[in-house]
């Protein structure tokens, strides 16, 4: 909660001013029934309009002042809440940006989004409307009780007799309400994952004619959700009428008991009016208690969830004494590297005491079966992950002593899974550039073999790719990703099976065009096509996280054990492409 206080403190002036206006507005509101009392007593006494004029003028003045104060208080407090919401969301986003990939492997995108959107909103509800009511309610009660007691303590007690019952009901229902709301939310989440699953597997559903069964199970689930919703509705429907009954019973007591006390001469008719008025004013804050309770509970739980994220220290960050390498030649060395993914620390190592040297300007290809550790190896160089033991060195310096931004500008990784943003192709390609670098983008696009594809697109470079590049083919997406890295011109180039969805001849063509680029850089190449890796200065064969063979294509074919085998097991598809 202490984090919350720092945000509150930041806006204390506006919250303070808001609270002052709020108390003023409420005080003004509280004077209104008192004036009714005066007016009604005057009317009952048979006084003409002359006597009423002053009261009425006062009422109008109060109405205007109250409107101003009310507007000011709500605007100040609610907007301060919005400001905190904005700060909190920004801070959380900035924090998430600094958390390493290992963190994201253990979290679902949906969960993080829900914290950034829903939980931050819940905290804002706590700070805006929550605080407003938290302050308003005691003020209402203090005024209301004091004034009513000053008129008639007995009638006050009688009229408020129903309150404890209502408060108890509110307290009871708010717990049950929470519980039922939770059930409904869970039901909705279940429905959503059900639909998600069904649609992801729609090809299986159709292929086995399982539509009817799917519909049946969905209907059952929907029915259960409906029952949960109705249970909630039964309780929610109770709250509106409950509020009315508070007013109704109050009026009844005032009429019956108050009426008798007027007959006794202890009260005036105007007193009755004041009572009805104050009871009306108190009804809302009373009902709002239950609502406030849930706002507080939700807000606190949400803040805890946010804190849980805020307290995670970024495991991969720039060290305080980090400095770049100048000039950077591009030597890479892995020294006795062992690695496991942070989420699976208890499993077998992904990389097991791997040592490898790539002199500046050379090209090393890494081959091996799925799961051999190829991708993990290349991810260690730009520090997407840190080694468990051993060292990754650039020009002899441990990568952990380099500034992250510098390191990642120096090492360009084209990942296996292309990820595109729903922006223009130019923006995707220039993603890592400080300016829009139109020329570099254009050159990179050409080098990545996208020229012909772009000619076919309506707006060329300015074509917006659909959600996650849905409008592009797999090969096109990979080439856009390649262009993105080429545009930023890194000293070390890492291609992680980056052209697997591109057909063999196009890949050949791209690599030919990149020959100069590759020769002038240190290149790490993960690939499964032999034609791709053949020309590397050295080929490294990984198996179960260890380097089992190392050498040139010819040497490995002649002497190797695993490499020729891998070579033979080449997937037929790719080889077939070699034929016209």
């Amino acid at each position: 909660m202490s984090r919350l206080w720092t945000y509150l403190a930041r806006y204390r002036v506006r919250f303070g001013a808001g609270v002052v206006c709020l108390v003023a507005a409420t005080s003004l509101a509280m004077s209104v029934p008192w004036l009714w009392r005066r007016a009604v007593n005057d009317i009952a006494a048979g006084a003409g309009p002359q006597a009423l004029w002053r009261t009425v003028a006062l009422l109008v003045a109060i109405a205007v002042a109250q409107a101003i104060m009310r507007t000011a208080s709500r605007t100040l407090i609610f907007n301060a809440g919005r400001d905190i919401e904005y700060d909190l969301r920004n801070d959380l986003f900035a924090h998430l940006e600094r958390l390493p990939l290992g963190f994201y492997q253990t979290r679902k995108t949906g969960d993080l989004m829900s914290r950034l959107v829903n939980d931050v909103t819940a905290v804002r509800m706590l700070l805006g409307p929550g605080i407003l009511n938290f302050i308003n309610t005691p003020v209402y009660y203090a005024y209301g009780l004091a004034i009513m007691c000053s008129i008639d303590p007995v009638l006050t007690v009688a009229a408020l007799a129903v309150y404890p019952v209502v408060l108890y009901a509110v307290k009871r229902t708010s717990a049950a309400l929470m519980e039922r709301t939770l059930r409904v939310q869970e039901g909705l989440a279940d429905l959503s994952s059900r639909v998600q699953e069904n649609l992801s597997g729609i090809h299986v559903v159709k292929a086995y004619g399982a539509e009817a069964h799917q519909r049946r199970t969905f209907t059952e689930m929907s029915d259960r959700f409906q029952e949960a919703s109705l249970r909630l509705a039964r309780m929610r429907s109770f709250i509106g009428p409950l509020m009315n009954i508070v007013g109704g019973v109050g009026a009844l007591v005032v009429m019956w008991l108050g009426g008798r006390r007027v007959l006794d001469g202890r009260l005036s008719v105007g007193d009755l009016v004041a009572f009805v008025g104050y009871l009306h004013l108190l009804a809302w804050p009373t009902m709002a208690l239950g609502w406030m309770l849930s706002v507080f509970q939700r807000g606190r739980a949400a803040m805890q969830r946010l804190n849980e994220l805020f307290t995670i220290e970024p495991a991969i960050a720039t060290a305080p004494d980090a400095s770049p390498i100048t000039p950077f030649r591009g030597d890479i060395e892995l020294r006795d590297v062992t690695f496991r993914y942070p989420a699976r620390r208890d499993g077998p190592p992904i990389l097991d005491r791997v040592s490898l040297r790539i002199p500046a300007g050379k090209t090393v290809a890494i081959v091996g079966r799925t799961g051999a550790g190829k991708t993990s190896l290349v991810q260690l160089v730009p520090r997407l992950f840190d080694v468990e033991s051993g060292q990754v060195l650039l020009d002899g310096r441990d990568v952990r002593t380099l500034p992250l931004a510098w390191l990642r500008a120096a090492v360009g990784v084209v990942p296996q899974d292309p990820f595109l943003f729903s922006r223009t192709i130019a923006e995707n390609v220039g993603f890592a550039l400080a300016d829009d670098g139109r020329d570099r983008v254009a050159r990179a696009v050409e080098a990545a073999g996208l020229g012909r594809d772009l000619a076919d697109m309506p707006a060329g470079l300015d074509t917006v790719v659909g959600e996650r590049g849905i409008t592009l083919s797999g090969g096109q997406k990979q080439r856009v990703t390649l262009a993105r890295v080429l545009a930023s011109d890194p000293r070390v180039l890492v291609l992680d099976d980056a052209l697997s969805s591109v057909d063999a001849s196009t890949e050949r063509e791209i690599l030919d065009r990149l020959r100069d680029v590759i020769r002038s850089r240190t290149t790490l190449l993960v690939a499964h096509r032999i034609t791709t890796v053949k020309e590397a200065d050295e080929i490294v064969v990984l198996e179960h996280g260890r380097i089992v063979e190392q050498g040139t294509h010819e040497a490995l074919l002649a002497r190797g054990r695993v490499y020729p085998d891998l070579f033979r097991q080449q997937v037929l598809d790719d080889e077939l492409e070699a034929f016209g």
Partner: protein
Amino acid sequence: MSDESPDEIGKAYDARLLRRLWTYVRSYRAVFWGALLLSPVNQAFSLIQPYLLMIGIDRYVAARDLAGLGRLATIFSIAVVGEFVSYYGQSYLTMLVAQRSLADLRVALFAHLQRLPMAFFDRTPVGKLVSRVTTDVDVLNEMFAAGAMTIVLDLLKLVGITAFMCWINWQMALVSLLLLGPMMLAIDFFRRRARVTYRQIRERIARINGFLQEAIGGIAVVQLSAREARTFAEFDRLNADHRDANRWSNRYEAALFSLVEAVSTVSIAFMLLRGGTLAAADVVEVGTVIAFIQYIQQFFVPIRDFSAKYAVMQSSMTAAERIFALLDEPAEPEAVAPQVPAVVRGAIEFDHVWFAYKAPDDREPEWVLRDVSFRIAPGEQIAIVGATGSGKTTTIKLLDRLYEAQRGRVLVDGIDVRDWDAAALRRRIAVVLQDVFLFSGSVADNVTLGTPGIERATVEAAGRYVHADGFVQRLGGYDAELRERGSNLSTGQRQLLAFARALAHDPAVLVMDEATSSVDPETEWLVQDALAKLLAGRTALVIAHRLSTIEHADRILVLHKGHLREEGTHAELLARDGVYARLYRMQYAPEQSGVAVGAG
């Protein structure tokens, strides 16, 4: 990124959509009308209370009639209880109608999704469809709970109060409602402003959602591009836009809230003045004035809440629009007179088939299959080989009629697949894909997929037959729940489960896309053995990635760039010395392959 088009005006009322929604409510119209009819009852109970207070003060207190006051109190109690019960009944019945009819809508939507063609799913992200079925339907629920229905009821209430006040004393009623006109104008002004802000808020939060989805999904790219600062700046802008729209909305709402409160106070003040005059002239008594205070207070509450309800209506109309648009998506075409042969032998024929996924009107489509013809006799086992994009997978999809050929015909047992009953056809053809999709649920559920008539014994026999029994027992048997859609299973185990699934359905035709990814040697052996058993005695079409599979096939089809290039047995194709022969040599003679590949 946003679901909503930017030029959308944010209508709060659309008769066409509401009429369509009514078709779902209609089944529960008795309850619906019940809820609607309860509302005048409720209002009668509610409106009578200030009137009773008036009588009590004017008639009994003034006349010092204690017994009368007691009687009146009894009537008042009945009114309070009546109001409570009718209010509760009315809001519960409303929710009942809402839940029942929206559940129907949701199920209809889901059922419709099952009938949409594959091409639809190719172009629509799953996430969007999920929010249609869940979030959007839920928004409509809000419409019932806090929107449309209550707006109608509120209007009724305003009319009721006005009528009551006029009936008691029209002069005072007139004075009380003097400010109504100007206030309506003011409210209309706020409503116009608010309409724009509400739309902005919705658009901007949708933009934040879309942005986050990408930024988190692409966090590796952001970090590798060292673009954290700029990405943050972009987010900051969206976040600030959202905050600013909300600031305006807060100002409007605060002003409107205060305005209504002030108008209520001033109206009561005016009424007091008029009431005082009339009382002095003995036209009305003091109780009337008290009753009027309460009526005026009741009158302004729904007016104050109007803007919130308006916002709910706006978002419901948008949601309804999107839901109905999805319901209007054309379903898979059905055969005019669907044929369901009693016995399926498993003869397959492709007759000059041309197919493209996208068929633009103006230019030549990108053909994936070009004039492909072949026949497969019942019981024959065929291997298809070809490069990525050569059309192998498409062949399967056409056979199962997940897509339809633009030219030519696909025949199963001599009947065009378009004339088959789609479900019957697909039940007789089992498809096992590379990427095995498992559903959450038990192992047995994943084998049967709910197909009626598959007994437990069949499931277990299938499991044993394809060597899945071992790991299934380790999981805890066939009733064991698969965690997160089988994420705890290896690729090989998933394959075996898919085999069991196919076997349990006892298909006449088995279609299989052999997995390329390697599995451990032991499982590999199990998979190979299971596959051989599975294929025995069936017409089989295997997209082969392993030479061993090809060698065992009766016949091999070589697809290349959409053409059927070669066709024949292993021996025949080797003898022909074409594509297949070179490929085969290359796989088994690595020493020469460098030349072979280079020559391509």
